[in-house]
């Protein structure tokens, strides 16, 4: 099995967002970065599939030079090699551009399976994987909780897989689909492994193939303005008898706050 995992470098969750003066993106100067969390689970899933079925795991990332940090981390955790589409303009690229950049570098590799996180912690569109599948001309399935490869599938041979999708309201769906395919992986579906010190040192010797951004990729969307969420506190007093008030409170919690 030849598996690709697409990872994105995003600001760390502890970072307090600060906006650039033009309010269309964050101030990158004082950001510290980490691997997008769902992508880390996608990587872990790929490594587990490789352990079960053999083959190789290739990590793919599109971004400026700084994304090497997460590429190195993925190699240290056990990926075999990497592809880096490097361009400064990819720092705040939309899903369409990111997917286009990745597709151009990945097309010739003919992966059996492509895994991405279901969405990014920064922009959170949840589109990159889906668009990438279209660009690679392969089927996709989203919000995947579990991946089962048909046991008859072996390296270099197209096979099939069964995947469990998360639906709303605690419902799940099992789907059978052919390979090659692209899956977008939900966070928390497995237990992440550490990069061992041995793995970290071994990663230094692993190949990172650089690819350039294909010409003619134009963003399909534009961030017009970013704003910090406004904090507000409203007190709503519910009148009536205790019984009525309790009923009303439950209704509000369920229908308006959606807390129940």
């Amino acid at each position, binding site marked *: 099995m030849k598996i690709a995992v697409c990872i994105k470098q995003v600001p760390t969750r*502890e970072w*307090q967002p600060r906006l650039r003066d033009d309010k269309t993106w964050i101030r990158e*100067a*004082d950001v*510290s970065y980490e691997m997008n969390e769902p992508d880390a689970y996608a990587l872990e899933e790929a490594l587990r599939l490789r352990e079960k079925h053999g083959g190789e795991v290739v990590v793919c990332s599109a971004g400026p030079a700084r994304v*090497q*940090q997460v590429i*190195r*981390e993925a190699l*240290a955790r056990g990926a075999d090699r990497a592809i880096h589409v490097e361009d400064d303009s990819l720092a705040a690229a939309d899903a369409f551009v990111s997917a286009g950049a990745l597709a151009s570098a990945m097309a010739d590799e003919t992966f059996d399976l492509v895994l991405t996180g279901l969405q990014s912690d920064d922009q959170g569109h949840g589109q990159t994987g889906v668009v990438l599948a279209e660009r690679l001309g392969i089927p996709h399935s989203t919000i995947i909780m579990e991946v089962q490869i048909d046991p008859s599938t072996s390296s270099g041979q197209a096979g099939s897989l069964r995947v469990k999708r998360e639906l709303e309201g605690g419902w799940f769906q099992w789907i059978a689909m052919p390979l090659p395919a692209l899956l977008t992986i939900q966070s928390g579906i497995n237990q992440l492994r*550490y*990069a*061992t*010190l*041995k793995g*970290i*040192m071994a*990663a*230094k010797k692993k190949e990172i193939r650089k690819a350039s951004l294909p010409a003619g990729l134009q963003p399909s969307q534009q961030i017009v303005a970013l704003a910090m969420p406004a904090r507000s506190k409203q007190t709503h007093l519910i009148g009536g008898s205790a019984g009525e008030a309790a009923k009303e409170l439950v209704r509000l919690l369920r229908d308006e706050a959606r807390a129940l």
Partner: protein
Amino acid sequence: METTLTKGGAWLLEDTPDADVFTPEKLSDEHRLMAQTTDEFIANEVLPNLDRLEEKDWELARTLIRRAGDLGLLGTNVPEEYGGLDLDKVSSLIVAEHIARSASFAVTYGGQANLCILPIVLFGTEEQKRQYLPGLVAGELVGAYALSESGSGSDALAAKTRATKQADGSWVLSGEKMWITNGGFADVIIVFAKVDGEHFTAFIVEKRFPGVSAGKEEHKMGIHGSSTTPILLQDTTVPAGNVLGEIGKGHKVALNTLNFGRFKLGAMCIGGSRQAIGDAAKYAAQRKQFGEPIASFGAIKHKLGEMFARTYAIESLTYRTAGLIDAALAGGTHDGATVAHAFEEFAVEASIAKVAGTEVLDYVLDENVQIHGGNGFVRDYMAERYYRDARVNRIFEGTNEINRMLIPGMLVRRALKGELGLIPAAKRLQDDVLAPSVPSTAFGDEGMLEDERRAIAAFKKVALMVLGTAMQTYGQKLTDEQEVLSYTADILIDTFASESAAIRARHALQSGGAHADLHEAAARLFVNDAALRVEQSAKSALAAMTDGDTLRTLLAALRRVLKVTPVNTVALRRRLAEAAVARGGYILN
């Protein structure tokens, strides 16, 4: 890492080119990943289990040591053929620094990696390394180090444990060791005993050897989650092949192990300080009094700013020391003797890292309690536990008092051996300062921390003045003058710390890296206050050694040398404090 100065203590006599100094900003991607792995391990597996460790669940401690072994955290200094990774010393520093916030477990880890694995790496025979290292590095065996006895702590060579040679070449050991970290569950113990009651020697003793037993757990002030027991040896037979190092050369094993252990303890103090600054900054941001977060008050900013700057200084000097050791060991693998020699070369710096690190940490943890107020005094918050846990750091691995004797003591010894040009430099300085006017030193006017550069040059002169006067006054008897030696040590510590901080800040300013303004503020604040301390120590030392006209002349010279204009430290502390609060901690790299 390019470094030309590879002599220990050379920084006192020469100007170090900025580019030669290793700083945390020069860490490689690999180093940062090692920090991340260590952090994740501590956060996911150790911190949630601290209470169980405090209840003396040593099976859990064993499991965690094995997990640390799986991740490679125990093998940073061990050659690959014995299961290690043979990494640079910066890597060891990083692992130690990031393991530190687990306090109790960090002590368990230190007992294993620094005090058991390391002496076997440095002094073990091929056979001993093959027999013990793979298990210890994998964490399948737990290690300990048994040097102290009830009657011999600092005076370790006065140990009473005896070793007697048997007809078949084996040894019989008898005695009682005290305060042994990991004592309750260690498998392999480095034991120091005197052959025939005379020749101090190290042995590798297995817990399963007949006659070896652990006493009761000590009731300690802190680090309750680490095991500390006596180790009893009752006519324990130890095979002939288990002498570690040479007979009668146990002090070499002990001292070289401690040289590196001290450096790593300094590294752990950085990690502890960072953690506490994070806790304090977050607490101060959310705790409201008089309708305001207490972080907005000057008195709290003073504390946070000072915690920040002092942590910056120990971090700078410890990373610099790691860089020096790595530079001395650059180029390939080394046998134990070469590595031991490198540690010995930088023993002064290691002692500085230990004393400065542990004292800064205790300062930071004390202020952390204070910022937490009443909440700092109760067990619901970590502040109280940190405060207790850290206190032992000033006691073990050589008390800070012993280390203070060693810092000037080792420099003097090297000077007398002709390895360090201390005496001619002190003589030159004496001629200079007693001359009617002090020639001003020429500095390149690079416009960056120039006042601090001048101040640090002055600190070095003051150190030489005091040390030179002490050598002249006391000659061979200087070792008896512990107060003067302590004052001298304080000046040397502040000098090395100030220079390391200032060089690092200049790096940050020149490279225009992130937070360069914070680097600058921390270095300027530290150097400014160091000048006050240096002056105070120098005056006390000089007044203890001389009087009358000699003292007046020396004090006049001191005034001329140490002309440092105070800076607005209130503003600098506020800037650092506000940054720590905004970022939720000490975040520079």
